[in-house]
């Protein structure tokens, strides 16, 4: 048995049956990280000793017959989640030495349920990017390679690129991520794994370094829908420390994975068919709809007429919120400080040196769209367009139970591609951004390979707080696709 190949569900059963110990499971993953992280750069910080101590505590609990939902399960934590006593960089130089004195609520929920934290996953700086190329700690390599041109190093997607690469290459059984414009679903699709962005408010944002507060959605990565369901159940829940956290019961998502899709109405948003989309993606989309029809679902066309305006609206709202949230990095209370002639010069030089080019660009855009004289023309208009995007979804969900569409317009691209023009990179989120603006849940599942042997994802978008339907449809797609292709770079022990 190769321990690193197990799903969370199987590992959980194996640990409870004492087929292997939590220490053995964690050691297998730490060995995989030692062997492959130099090549993948999926982790910024590895916390091996802590992980083994947590695994030993899990073994002690298991020996007493006590087990929580995640006892002994080794996970990667996106370096945007504050971890008590463990450096948290947000992928930025400005937080290069920041050691949080507290644990994020989502992290604390996972620890409460017995999880083992292997370390902190690499990411685009402050979660701003679709390729992991903006990290101050170097790019992440996608574990998948093209059949032709196997030498090209591909991006894992972003911003949660390290999380997705770690789970795909079997360096971790699951991971946390955040999705602000597509940062869970797009890397899940690029790396051939499952990523779930729950409804806004389902997972607390407390202790997650803020990028755009009205858009940031913490969520899980894993290699199956069922594993994502197990993780989400632990991560979710009401948190009085996040005023936007939903005070609703958390359902049994794992059970939802076994629900039938028979009789469900699945919507196909016609505006998600865009110029320049890889041909195989259209084919895979049709295949996915056929699978759902075979499983007894009814497939109907729907219209989300404001889809094309989602990304331009996003690139006003997200930078505006970022410019406000990132004002706290001033070299005074925590993080990097660069000396200056006076206090103002200290602020300006600290921020120029601490932030990378993409973060500076977005802060400047955000500052501009919020500045006197431009607020109505940009920010207020974008918020109204955002209302129309939500209305599109609300009207669609009056007729259908869920929507199915491609996750991204292409498979993973190579490091260095799409780098010349910021707008070109932004267009990666064309299918993912709308659900973030509306706050509705969405899951990406791997459904097939393109001609180059690279994974492609399909996403299911659902009604607010109806993640259960998404797990049912996602698991149905997963069963029909029988996706069993493996990345070329992966742990083998």
């Amino acid at each position: 048995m190769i321990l690193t190949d197990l799903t969370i569900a199987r590992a959980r059963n194996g640990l409870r049956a004492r087929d292997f110990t939590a220490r053995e499971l964690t050691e297998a993953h730490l060995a995989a990280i030692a062997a492959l992280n130099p090549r993948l750069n999926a982790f910024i910080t590895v916390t091996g000793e802590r992980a083994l101590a947590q695994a030993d505590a899990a073994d002690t609990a298991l020996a007493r017959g006590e087990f929580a939902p995640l006892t002994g399960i080794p996970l990667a934590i996106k370096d945007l989640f504050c971890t008590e006593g463990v450096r948290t960089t947000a992928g930025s130089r400005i937080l290069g030495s920041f050691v949080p004195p507290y644990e994020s609520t989502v992290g604390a929920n996972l620890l409460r349920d017995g999880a083992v934290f292997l370390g902190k996953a690499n990411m685009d700086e402050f979660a701003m990017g679709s390729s992991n190329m903006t990290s101050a700690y170097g790019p992440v390599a996608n574990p998948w390679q093209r059949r032709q041109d196997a030498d090209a190093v591909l991006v894992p997607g972003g911003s949660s690129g390290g999380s997705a690469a770690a789970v795909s290459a079997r360096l971790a059984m699951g991971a946390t991520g955040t999705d602000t414009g597509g940062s869970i679903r797009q890397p899940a699709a690029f790396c051939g794994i499952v990523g779930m962005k729950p409804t806004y408010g389902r997972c607390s944002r407390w202790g997650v370094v803020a990028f755009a507060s009205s858009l940031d959605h913490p969520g899980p990565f894993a290699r199956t829908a069922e594993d994502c369901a197990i993780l989400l159940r632990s991560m979710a829940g009401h948190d009085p420390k996040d005023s936007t956290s939903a005070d609703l019961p958390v359902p049994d998502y794992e059970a939802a994975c076994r629900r039938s899709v028979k009789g469900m109405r699945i919507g196909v948003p016609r505006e998600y068919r865009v110029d320049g989309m890889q041909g195989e993606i259209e084919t895979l989309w049709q295949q996915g709809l056929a699978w759902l029809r075979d499983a007894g679902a009814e497939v109907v066309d729907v219209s989300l007429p404001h889809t094309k305006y989602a990304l331009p609206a996003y690139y006003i709202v997200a930078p505006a919120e970022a410019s406000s949230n990132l004002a706290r990095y001033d070299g005074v209370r925590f993080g990097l400080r660069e000396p200056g002639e006076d206090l103002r010069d200290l602020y300006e030089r600290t921020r120029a040196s601490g932030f990378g080019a993409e973060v500076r660009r977005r802060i400047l855009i955000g500052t501009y769209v919020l500045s006197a004289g431009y607020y109505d023309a940009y920010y207020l208009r974008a918020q109204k367009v955002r209302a129309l995007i939500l209305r599109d979804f609300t009207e669609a969900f009056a007729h259908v139970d869920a929507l199915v569409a491609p996750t991204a317009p292409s498979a993973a691209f190579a490091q260095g591609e799409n780098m010349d023009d910021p707008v070109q990179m932004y267009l990666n989120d064309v299918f993912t951004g709308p659900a973030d603006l509306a706050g509705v849940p969405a899951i990406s599942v791997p459904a097939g390979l393109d001609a180059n042997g690279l994974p492609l994802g399909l996403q299911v978008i659902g009604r607010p707080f109806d993640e259960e339907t998404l797990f049912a449809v996602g698991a149905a797609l997963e069963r029909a696709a029988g996706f069993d292709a493996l990345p070329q770079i992966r742990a083998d022990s």
Partner: protein
Amino acid sequence: MSLEPASIRRIASLARIHVEDAELPALAAELNGILGWIEQLNEVNVDGIEPLTGAAQMALKMREDVVTDGGYPDKVLANAPERAGDFFAVPKVVE
């Protein structure tokens, strides 16, 4: 609408980000590219539409206006670049 280098300097100053003169032309080109792409929002009829401020589809909760945390200055100051006693320290701002 197109941003001139002088406008970029003003925005950078509002954002408290130091920008060298040599960086301004490239920065202007990038920001104008993004703003030009955003202009398409002007095609959308937003008459009578209420702006949507967030994705939370529920009323925000009220809580008691009381202190619930605190009393550990060493934890608060642990990441400070410079401290003086129980205070954050900055360069002298008053002559």
